[in-house]
């Protein structure tokens, strides 16, 4: 066994794309799992046994990352220098910030025992879920655009969309936790 590629895409032997055929990925995962299964190395040298263990670790981490579209996008962005980094608010539209702020205010009111905030929060939850669905559709389109063009400008856009998604998603989770907790 030679040196193992540490890059997940390279390890799986696939192109560095944002959109992946998940069934193909799964087939490769099973094939590689068999290839590096520790049981097949019990009679080999300690060095080879270690390599098989390392391979299994990369394989599992890689599969977890690549099969999830968001984790995969973060991974590809990172290898292209678009790490989440410290970009401050530059990628978040001001209107979204306003909405996020208002929603946080409503959350705080509900936590303080103000039940009148509940109706507003339920409405906000529906709005943010719709927003997330819109963001996901946008992401899907951008994935295809990048895979077709390999244009770094598209990656910068994907970075912005993912930032927005994370923002919205954190909020939806928090609202759901709060609404469920308050109802219990």
């Amino acid at each position: 066994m030679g040196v193992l590629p540490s890059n997940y895409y390279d390890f799986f032997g696939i192109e560095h794309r944002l959109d992946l055929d998940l069934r193909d990925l799964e087939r490769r995962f099973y094939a590689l799992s068999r290839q590096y299964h520790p049981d097949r190395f019990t009679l080999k040298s300690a060095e080879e046994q270690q390599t098989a263990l390392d391979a299994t670790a990369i394989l599992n981490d890689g599969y977890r990352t690549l099969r999830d579209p968001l984790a995969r996008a973060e991974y590809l962005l990172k290898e292209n220098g678009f790490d989440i980094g410290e970009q401050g608010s530059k990628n978040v539209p001001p209107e979204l910030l306003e909405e996020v702020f208002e929603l946080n205010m409503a959350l705080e009111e509900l936590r303080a025992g103000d039940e009148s905030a509940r109706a507003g929060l339920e409405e906000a939850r529906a709005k943010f879920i719709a927003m997330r669905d819109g963001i996901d559709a946008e992401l899907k389109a951008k994935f295809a655009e990048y895979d077709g063009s390999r244009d770094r400008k598209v990656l910068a856009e994907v970075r912005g969309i993912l930032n927005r998604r994370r923002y919205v998603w954190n909020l939806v989770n928090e609202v759901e936790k709060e609404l469920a907790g308050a109802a219990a």
Partner: protein
Amino acid sequence: MSYSDKVLDHYNHPRNVGSLDRNDPNVGTGMVGAPECGDVMKLQVKVDEMTGVIAEAKFKTFGCGSAIASSSLATEWLKGKTVDEALAIKNTDIVNELSLPPVKIHCSVLAEDAIKAAISDYKKKQDQRKPVEARA
């Protein structure tokens, strides 16, 4: 990771929490957020018309202790400063004052961004108020 005493003090006793009337022409509002942690920070200043000095500064931050402390400290520093002096506040000043660890530096960047956004909003409002001929 543990917070410094100064961060804890601002977190437990935040200064100047609240809001100012954003329709007041002498009030500048800055709203910024950090997608990496989901923080959102609103910072407002009210400038005294006669002296050009920041008379009031208010903030409301949803986020971690360092983000709250950074904005709380920022409002303390803003009061009594002119608009230009306010713009000279750097995130590194906040980092030093609060002894923020490297992973929390972005909180101070957020506070600096919030100051800049509030001042820029104030300046925009002031420009709009001036008659066109006086601006030339």
